[in-house]
């Protein structure tokens, strides 16, 4: 077979380096693209910030005085300490919807077809998107932490532990954007991806120890709440931030007894499973 590539004035693309190095550069090119987009549509980032700030204010001032935290009694300030890790964690999981909508839009507009016809590594389109979302999540967390400090929240156990807490939050957020990626590839419109990316987050984040202690829930919900991956990160952060009152009873469930390890394991597991599913879906994606 003659090489068509020798035809005058045409040329095949350079051979990719293949493997991990190409995967990294492709992903970075895609991440850059998504970050440029985010910077040019700042409304999305801004609305993403308003909601958690609203939650901070609503929960701490409306519910704060009425919720009893075991070991600390009923006081608005102790609830604020308790609450903040929950709001942080909920906020990072909301990045799911953004990732899903972004990828659904790319499908819808035919961009995924363009990318799939290029000699790029398979996961790069999705990795690029999730990395860009990670950057956005980090920015959101910074702003939210400042608001939390303003309403009286503090991390009591030093900066390294506080940073470790935020690290776990970012990892959880990153894991959830892979769920978002799978949703985005599975629905027909960006609108469906946004609502599909959000709806299930409400039961997930509310049937947890994020906003109220699990002790007062019916026992079946208590089990769900304590094994909820989301709860593990929340408790790990409370631990690392020193936000739990001294007499707070540790629920009798493995993830609650080892929250940092549980949070890490859950996030890694979610990434492994949903990344594999999303990349597989991407290979056969049709607009």
């Amino acid at each position, binding site marked *: 077979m003659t090489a068509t*590539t020798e035809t005058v004035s045409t040329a*095949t693309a350079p051979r990719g380096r293949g493997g991990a190095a190409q995967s990294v550069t492709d992903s970075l090119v895609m991440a850059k693209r998504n970050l440029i987009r985010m910077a040019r549509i700042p409304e999305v980032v801004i609305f993403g910030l308003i909601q958690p700030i609203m939650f901070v204010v609503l929960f701490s001032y409306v519910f704060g005085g009425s919720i009893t935290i075991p070991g600390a009694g009923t006081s608005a300030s102790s609830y604020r300490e308790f609450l903040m890790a929950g709001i942080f964690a909920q906020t990072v999981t909301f990045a799911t919807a953004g990732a899903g909508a972004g990828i659904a839009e790319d499908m819808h507009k035919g961009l995924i077809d363009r990318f799939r016809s290029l000699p790029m590594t398979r996961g790069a389109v999705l990795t690029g998107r999730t990395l860009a979302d990670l950057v956005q999540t980090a920015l959101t967390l910074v702003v939210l932490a400042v608001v939390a400090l303003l309403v009286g929240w503090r991390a009591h156990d030093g900066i390294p532990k506080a940073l470790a807490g935020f690290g776990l939050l970012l990892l959880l957020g990153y894991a959830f954007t892979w769920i978002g990626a799978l949703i985005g590839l599975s629905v027909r419109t960006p609108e469906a991806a946004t609502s599909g990316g959000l709806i299930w987050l409400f039961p997930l984040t509310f049937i947890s120890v994020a906003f109220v202690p699990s002790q007062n829930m019916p026992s079946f919900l208590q089990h769900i709440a304590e094994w909820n991956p989301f709860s593990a990160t929340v408790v790990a952060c409370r631990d690392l931030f020193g936000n739990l009152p001294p007499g707070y009873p540790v629920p009798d469930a493995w993830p609650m007894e080892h929250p940092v390890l549980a949070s890490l394991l859950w996030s890694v597991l979610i990434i492994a499973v949903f990344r594999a599913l999303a990349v597989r879906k991407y290979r056969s994606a049709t607009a």
Partner: protein
Amino acid sequence: MPGAIYAEGLVKNFGDVRALDGVDLDVPESTVLGLLGPNGAGKTTTVRVLTTLLSPDSGSAQVAGIDVLKHPNTVRRSIGLSGQFAAVDEYLTGRENLQMVGQLYQMSARDAKRRAAELLERFNLADAADRTAKTYSGGMRRRLDLAAALVVSPPVMFMDEPTTGLDPRNRQSLWEVIEELVAGGTTLLLTTQYLEEADRLAHDIAVVDHGKVIARGTSDQLKAQTGGERIEVVVHERDRISTARGILERHALPGPAQDGCTVEEHTRKLTVPVAGGAKLLAEVIRELDGEGIEIDDIGLRRPTLDDVFISLTGHAAEDETADDEREEAAK
């Protein structure tokens, strides 16, 4: 020796719908094949299989001599795809779009930048290079999309309805770009619904319907097969249609799939394939006049795409559901 694009027995089902029913293609190097067909015929599905976007249920395909199913990523280095709707990122500038595509073709950042500048110049987008694609007109987007497909000057190009939705001026200038490209040695597979487009650009035309190639040849050959020219008459009074039909049918050219004269009752329009040009037209007018049939309009028409379809398939182009609608329905 198979050509630059070669497909054999491609079959693809979407649920119960058979989108491709054994498509065979062979496009020699440095030629243009026009894939002509109504919506839903399988044109887009064929392009998606050949550009590695879709796996066929059976059949085989080679592009630039490389097996599409076995080595999709190698094929991707040798092809450019310009889709039905302009696939550019509208929040990126023209320059950023092209640089991104260059880098994803594994060019270095510097090469991608240089190539983007060249293409923007060539496609007359230099002035708009640093504006987001959102602000571009339809024609500009289409040019940007085509430029993106040409970032590496691939030896094999696929264009899926490149001029659909463009105004005549933009269509004209896109045609010129495509001609230039082919003159440079690119092998091109082009899908279109416009016979005129295929006529102008394609060396060979394959007519697809119901997932099969039903006719192949140059545009002249196809037109001849369609019965070449035809006479169209609009009669003034509805009750004279049958008389007029009798006259026209006497002059009808016998063809493979035609039943003489076709009648559109509501517009009182009769159409008949003929051979005989202006002389025959004059004769038909005299005969109609002789019967006292009043005529609103009469003319000798060259074949259109519709005629090709009606003659080859027995149905009009619009009767079909779109490719994507089928895929959608099968999901």
